[in-house]
């Protein structure tokens, strides 16, 4: 065999070895690792009313609450938020799936091995940074601190990053007083599909939920998002309540003046508004047959998103998608969208 004739084989062997080296290096890091980095903005489609513009008081629909959670939620008063010691409290990491905002994901690599040590999920003005540890470290023990961020570890399952969060501090499950206890835990699956990121969160809480709550959110990558940096908000509490220090606003059992408001507005029986596992499933519609009274107006608020309708960026980004026929100059635009204030 001449050298000239053997060249293609030498090239093949070298190429194969290079491929093996590269593949080996990649495989050593993770079999199916997907790049999740970048800014992910929410696509406003799911659970819009409870997540974005609301929730209404005593709208507990779709939550697998037990009686204890319901009792606490019915005693909730918005006045709590005025308490100086509560003004700067963040929501927990589960607010990723409960809240309306986007986030930025950034990998942190080991400078020697190149392995991904963690994924950072940027903080927002009301949610702390979450860090998903990928290096196999164990979760802390039972006596360790519980924080709003909790402690999260992750691993790739196929092309999906699955994260487990424990050591969470108590936080609202819904912003109308539905509690989530400090004994809850959460699994989040991050699945990237091109420019879209699907987040599926499964929250279990032995204190307040009868079965896991499954939430999903869709995000779209936006490399030119208006939010390029972590959105942090230094907070200092202030005296802004007429109540004396130490007064805890709450409604006594049976005395919540807003208890029936949501149910009446949407023609629902109160039992539906009060939630429970059965309200999560489509079959529950059958239970409402004959008792559900359709409101006179199909939609009287939030019909075309919510926000400052005068803001062209907001209008083009959200309103035009939901109500394409609605013009910014239309006289009804404020009624259907709002001008930045809750209606």
């Amino acid at each position: 065999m001449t050298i000239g004739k053997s060249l293609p084989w030498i090239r093949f062997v070298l190429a194969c070895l290079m491929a093996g080296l590269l593949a080996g290096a990649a495989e050593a890091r993770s079999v199916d690792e997907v790049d999740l980095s970048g800014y992910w903005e929410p696509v406003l489609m799911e659970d819009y009313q409870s997540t974005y513009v609301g929730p209404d008081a005593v709208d507990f629909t779709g939550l697998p609450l037990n009686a204890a959670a319901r009792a606490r939620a019915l005693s909730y008063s918005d006045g709590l938020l005025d308490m100086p010691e509560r003004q700067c409290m963040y929501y927990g990491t589960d607010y990723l799936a409960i809240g309306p905002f986007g986030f930025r994901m950034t990998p942190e690599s080991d400078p020697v091995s190149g392995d991904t040590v963690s994924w950072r999920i940027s903080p927002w003005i009301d949610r702390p940074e979450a860090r998903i540890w990928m290096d196999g470290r164990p979760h802390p023990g039972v006596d360790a601190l519980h924080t709003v961020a909790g402690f999260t570890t992750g691993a790739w399952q196929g092309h999906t990053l699955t994260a487990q969060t424990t050591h969470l501090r108590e936080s609202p499950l819904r912003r109308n007083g539905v509690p989530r206890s400090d004994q809850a835990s959460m699994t989040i699956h991050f699945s990237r599909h091109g420019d879209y990121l699907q987040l599926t969160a499964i929250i279990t809480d032995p204190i307040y939920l009868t079965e896991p709550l499954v939430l999903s959110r869709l995000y779209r990558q936006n490399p030119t998002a208006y939010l390029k940096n972590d959105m942090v908000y230094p907070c200092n509490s202030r005296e802004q309540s007429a109540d004396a220090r130490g007064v805890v606003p709450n409604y006594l059992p049976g005395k919540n003046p807003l208890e029936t408001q949501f149910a009446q507005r949407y023609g629902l029986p109160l039992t539906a508004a009060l939630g429970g596992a059965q309200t999560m499933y489509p079959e529950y519609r059958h239970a409402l047959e004959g008792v559900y009274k359709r409101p006179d107006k199909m939609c009287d608020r939030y019909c075309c998103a919510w926000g400052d309708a005068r803001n062209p960026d907001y209008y083009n980004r959200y309103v035009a998608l939901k109500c394409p026929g609605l013009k910014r100059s239309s006289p009804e635009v404020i009624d259907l969208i709002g001008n930045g204030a809750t209606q």
Partner: protein
Amino acid sequence: MPVGRQALAVLLSCGLWAAAAQAAPEAHAPRETDKPAVSAPAEPAPGITATRIRDDVYVLAGAGPNVVVQIGPQGAVVVDSGDAAHADQVLAAIRSLTNDPIRYLFDTGADPDHAGGNLVLAQAGRAFGQSLGGPFGSPGIAVIVASEGAAMRLSQGDDSDGWPTHSVSVRSAFYLNNQGVEVIAKPAAHSDADAVVLFRRSDVLVTGEIFDITRFPIIDVDHGGAIQGEIDALNALIELAIPNVPLTWLPGGTLVVPAHGRICQQAELVDYRDMVVIVRDRIKSLKDQGKTLDQVLQSDPTAGYAERYGGKAGNGPSAAFVTAIYKTLSPAAEQKP
């Protein structure tokens, strides 16, 4: 070698190489900068776990309530001694942390599970100025500090070495191991003997039975405990603890060591205080309507909280909590927030 077999061998070797690379990912330990704020617990003595919560502060669990040990160049400062049955293990655990003597022992209350180990720990300690003896020191034993109420109750045992040597009526301050240590009496809360301890530089607040993350507070009515004192004490603890403001998104803030259970922060004190006040408000409303204690118990005033802090409303911790509130509610005119 035929060309086909040659290529197959190369491909096979490539595949094996890649498989080997996949099977042996590089392991790496957590880096020093990534250490959690609270380190994993170790077991320095049988049945006792020690969790380091600050560079110089440890929490010992397993001897009844949490025992806190702060160590430094002047020796060990201990908050609560645990129950008598575990005193030797607690002492062994402290010895595993430092060979320096126990200088001060602070009692957060007079209950046997908090102060039962006083005698063993004190006798193993040594007060400053020991060599002078007589009125200038307490030879051979550590100084024991407690509230006046606790000092009265604890000064009745056979062996005076376990009695408090320093009582606190309102507040006493010490400068130990290069930091200020405040002992603040909180009368008529869990009982008439409560005190809280604040390590100012370490920023660790030890609450005693006023705050227990594992259950409803136990209000010991027979020993002077009362609901309003409990709420006042919780409000005072909230004022002493500092949350991580203004940089709320970063870890930080005062560490709060409850009587039992895990380490907490100010937010959990706030949640706990709110729970106590809300249950108090419900019971007060019912009592103002003329309801009897049995009727109040049947109305389940701990609804929403019993699953987290106690058993069912009709028995156990919930019933004891409700009963104590009912019995110690002040007349409406005297009610404070």
